[in-house]
């Protein structure tokens, strides 16, 4: 295949336009009475086919094969190119009105520099220069006299090629910026569509071209019969307007051309620009085949790097497999299965011909195949696929998985992989892509594999890890004084792939957990600061919580990944989650209002702290006392931490990192605290007060959004109102935030995407400039090292 090495940009010359053109357009009509395109009309059939069954008069190809051909319009009077008008202005400023030489001193180079430094008198012919005025978008004045496009063209023709080089005007002759001949785009670029009513609806460009041809022809006629000057001037102006809006319909100072319905027309420039334009939508946003999308649901019994694929999907999406001596038997079997899973949909012969496998043809095809044929077989267990959830914010949003064909119609994924995808199961949908070439499959397997992305490059800790119930179960299993009989242990280990001999009658929970561990040493802390000690793969002290194995935190998991690799870490995690959930099922966990219960005495204590702070503030309102008020939930949290029962389910969940936080618990039990808007206490509302229930300039914090009650006790209507204000701010915040951070990301990626580690291990950009001599200062990839550092202790 040939490689494109360069893309060049320049102006199109009238001669080139004529050469490209297959027909001159002179008639403003589209179709004749019989519904056929008019000869020399705007939809002349020589410009390409857009209807099925018609062959192109120029190239003889049919719909889909004919790329279309340009036509052209000879403008009776030239017009100015609206987008290039500023460049014309610079050229006029930079050159002499009489001889067309550059006015600036000979050491000045570049278009805008020469325009800025132009002399008042021509250094070559001595003509005094009059001032040039540019009236946006397309009018030019020399002194008081308006310049016609013809005059400007004559002026620009005078500029010599040497001067153009000095002006760095290299894209062609400047007079080409004055349009004398207008290219008419092929029909394939502006197809007309047939509505259900049988009417034809033309493209916006066609509409605009009709206007141009109509005015052009009218101008031709009036010039022939010698019409009055003012009329001619008016019509030229109209022609200029139509050509201007044809090229860009969003020019400043002129009204956009509109469709009959009042909608502004989408003309040439509008097709290119913006998010829905050609560049961002079609050229950088590629669409693919061999993809599927469905609702996701959880499955704890598949691997981390597996995805459950519905059979319907597996039967539609195929994997091309080359027939060889070794696999011809299996391939024949697949072909004979045809549309029965596992089967095959197509074969591709060595000469490139595709044949569909149906129940009728399957026997014939199975006989036909020889090594070298390609069988497009159904997706099967173990095929590598790419699994993705939008928004794809980081590379872990697209990971490689092994397919596992399943009944029903949802994609199934392992619960631990919800964090990198940011997925939940309230109706989320995800996408699946099946790589079609060997290179792609290899990249998916060796680079994108989910097991290789357990550690995030962002901060070097596992992003795939245990969550919610997994943590709950493993806590109840590994906390002190859990005793399990041999039978119980056997039942638990049954769900895992651990193969051990049980030679004791009783086991502790810690011992059971230790079965999962590889030979590893680990010293860590739980979330509450208790010690966790693992020696030679045996959990000796402490319990396992979020800090050890949780997603985005787990240091134990990180260590296993570091020492034994991603596959082993994934196996550990799979076993752990299965074990944890099956243990949790024998060891019920529930939560109720009782878990938020404090003794009356302690409840009073909280109330006392709250009312004390309020009194303090009322006595002396200042920044300091306000700050104390704002930090009240933290004070309440201290009391809750001290007094709430150690067996409270809410507390356990918060402390091991399974769900919630002690702050929320204390907001439920004790006091919600200061509600804020824009980071400040609430002051907006009426004049001098937030609500009509208060006096003006009241000092009581309750008047400015302080909520002294907790959710359990219930909050007053006014407090509820403030709470809702705060809640609403949060909602509008998230709505605004996504847009802002999306734009930041777009800018960052556009600025940084070419930066890569070069072959000499320096960081370079697209111009081959060195950005960093050693990647990341110390050449340690945070994706490969725990927390981006290498600690000797971690390696023991």
């Amino acid at each position, binding site marked *: 295949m040939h490689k494109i090495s360069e893309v060049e*940009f320049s102006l199109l010359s009238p001669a080139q336009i004529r050469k490209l053109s297959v027909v001159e357009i002179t008639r403003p009509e589209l179709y004749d009475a019989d519904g056929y395109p008019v000869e020399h009309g705007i939809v002349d059939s020589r410009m390409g086919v857009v209807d099925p069954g018609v062959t192109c008069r120029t190239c003889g190809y049919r719909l889909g094969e004919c790329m279309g051909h340009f036509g052209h319009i000879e403008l009776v009077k030239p017009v100015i190119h609206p987008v290039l008008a500023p460049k014309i202005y610079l050229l006029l400023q930079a050159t002499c009105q009489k001889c067309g030489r550059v006015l600036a001193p000979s050491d000045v180079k570049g278009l805008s520099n020469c325009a800025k430094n132009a002399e008042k008198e021509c250094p070559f012919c001595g003509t005094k220069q009059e001032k040039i005025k540019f009236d946006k978008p397309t009018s030019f004045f020399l002194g008081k006299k308006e310049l016609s496009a013809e005059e400007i063209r004559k002026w620009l023709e005078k500029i010599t090629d040497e001067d153009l080089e000095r002006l760095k005007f290299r894209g062609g002759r400047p007079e080409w910026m004055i349009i004398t001949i207008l290219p008419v785009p092929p029909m394939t670029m502006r197809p007309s569509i047939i509505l259900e009513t049988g009417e034809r609806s033309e493209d916006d460009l066609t509409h605009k071209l009709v206007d141009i041809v109509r005015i052009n022809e009218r101008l031709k006629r009036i010039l022939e019969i010698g019409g009055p000057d003012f009329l001619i001037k008016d019509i030229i102006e109209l022609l200029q307007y139509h050509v201007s809006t044809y090229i860009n319909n969003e020019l400043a100072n002129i009204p956009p051309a509109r469709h009959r319905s009042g909608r502004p027309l989408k003309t040439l420039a509008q097709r290119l620009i913006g998010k829905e334009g050609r560049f961002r939508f079609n050229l950088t946003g590629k669409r693919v085949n061999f993809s599927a999308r469905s609702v996701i649901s959880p499955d704890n019994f598949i691997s981390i790097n597996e995805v459950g694929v519905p059979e319907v999907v597996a039967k539609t999406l195929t994997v091309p497999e080359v027939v060889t001596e070794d696999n011809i038997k299996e391939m024949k079997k697949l072909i004979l299965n045809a549309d029965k899973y596992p089967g095959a949909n197509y074969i591709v012969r060595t000469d490139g011909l595709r044949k569909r496998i149906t129940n009728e043809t399957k026997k014939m095809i199975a006989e036909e195949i020889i090594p070298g044929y390609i069988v497009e077989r159904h997706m099967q267990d173990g095929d590598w696929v790419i699994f993705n959830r939008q928004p794809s914010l*980081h590379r872990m949003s697209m990971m490689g998985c092994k397919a596992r064909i399943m009944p029903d119609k949802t994609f199934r994924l392992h619960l631990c992989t919800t964090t990198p995808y940011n997925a939940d199961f309230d109706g989320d949908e995800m996408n699946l892509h099946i790589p079609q070439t060997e*290179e792609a499959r290899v990249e998916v397997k060796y680079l994108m594999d989910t097991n290789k992305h357990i550690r995030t490059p962002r901060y070097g800790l596992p992003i795939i890890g245990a969550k919610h119930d997994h943590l709950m179960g493993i806590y109840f299993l590994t906390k002190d004084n859990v005793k399990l009989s041999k039978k119980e242990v056997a039942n638990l280990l049954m769900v895992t792939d651990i193969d051990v001999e049980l030679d004791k009658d009783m086991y502790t929970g810690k011992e059971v957990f230790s079965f999962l561990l590889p030979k590893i040493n680990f010293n860590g802390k739980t979330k509450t600061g208790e010690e966790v000690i693992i020696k030679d793969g045996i959990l000796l002290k402490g319990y396992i919580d979020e800090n050890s194995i949780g997603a985005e935190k787990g240091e134990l998991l990180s260590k296993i990944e570091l020492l034994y690799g991603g596959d082993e870490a994934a196996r550990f995690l799979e076993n752990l989650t299965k074990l944890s959930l099956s243990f949790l099922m024998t060891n019920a966990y529930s939560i109720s209002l009782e878990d938020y219960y404090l003794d009356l005495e302690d409840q009073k204590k909280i109330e006392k702290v709250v009312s004390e702070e309020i009194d303090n503030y009322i006595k002396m309102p200042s920044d*300091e006392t306000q700050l104390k008020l704002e930090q009240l939930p933290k004070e309440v949290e201290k009391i809750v931490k001290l007094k709430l029962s150690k067996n409270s389910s809410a507390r356990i969940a918060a402390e091991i990192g399974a769900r919630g936080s002690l702050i929320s618990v204390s907001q439920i039990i004790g006091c919600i605290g200061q509600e804020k808007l824009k980071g400040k206490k609430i002051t907006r509302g009426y004049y001098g007060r937030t609500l009509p229930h208060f006096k003006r300039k009241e000092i009581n914090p309750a008047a400015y959004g302080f909520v002294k009650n907790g959710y359990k006790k219930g909050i007053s209507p006014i407090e509820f109102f403030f709470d809702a204000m705060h809640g609403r701010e949060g909602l509008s915040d998230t709505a605004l935030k996504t847009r*802002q951070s999306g734009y930041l990301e777009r*800018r960052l990626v556009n600025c*940084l995407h070419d930066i890569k580690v070069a072959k000499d291990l320096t*960081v370079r950009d697209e111009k081959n400039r060195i950005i960093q001599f050693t990647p990341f200062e110390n050449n340690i990839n945070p994706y490969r090292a725990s927390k981006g550092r290498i600690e000797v202790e971690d390696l023991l």
Partner: protein
Amino acid sequence: MEEIKQRFDKYCEEHKITGEKKKELERRVEEVIKKSKFEPGEALGIVTTQSISEPATQMTMRAYHFAASAGIRMASGLPRLIEVFDLRKNIENITTVYLLENSKENAEKIATEIVESKLGNVISDINYDISNLQVIVDLDKNSLEKLYLTPENIINTVKKFVHKYKANLVRNKIYFDNVKSYSEFRVLKQKLINMHIKGVKGVNEAVILNTNGEWILQVRGGSFKKILSLDGVDSTRTITTDIEEIKNVLGIEAARQALINEVKKTLEEQGVDVDSRYIGLVADVMCVDGDLEAISRYGVMKHKKSVLARLNFEETIKVLFNAAVLNKKDELNTLIANLIVGQVTPIGTGTVKLRWKL
């Protein structure tokens, strides 16, 4: 690498690891070092972008927050992050001033040196005596004392500032002779009230804080250069949030570090965990030319050579026609350009070719 080896030796010494065990451990350390090196072709720029912008979606929109011990308002969260990458000019820059002498009194004194005072702040009255065509300005002695100023100081600055009328100081009053009309008086009054007498122009607020036993000042607005040059200010530690100012005063290396510090601080406040070397890379890109360049179409993007990459970003029409007039060529070195023409992008596995045709 050397540093890790040293730490390894130290660790072995501390834990009395020798012989076979040490060799085994050393092998392991070397293996991990080797494994954690970057590979050629790694798309560092893209990973960096993702590592910064993915957590940015979790950050708050709250534009301001108040430093813990009350006082000065600081930009924070996502808006601050955008501000830094944009190098947006923000007149509300905060300068943290460290002092040479650590005492509350000193801090208060220097605060008066920094906060801009106008004549309007120290006068109790301005009157026009029509019969004598005189303007009488009453100076407020108390507020003058607070600013460590004397009436003599004032009259000197006034004489430099007002040339049209003769100014005299009698006790605590300044007299201007020959003010001919009431309208002239009004003009003079406005001029006098806004007259700068002390402090750094543009500074409207200073808060004295005590952090870990040290008295510091936080100052909003004003020129960083002028604040640095004040007596009693520790110019080796005093720092501002305005990156552009830091570049102008302290140079590009300082600006790079300030950039990293600012972004890091903003991310940390939000409880977002990002390896700081990613921020370092962005800072490096913004500073490679020896001048600061914003992450926008006016900065880094403007200097990209690739036409296709630029027209894919913003201002498509403008870039396209400029390229046509200047006869630009895109040599297809960038990802976007190759994506647009439908070729393999030159990054990662795209940087190498496969000999074997599959």
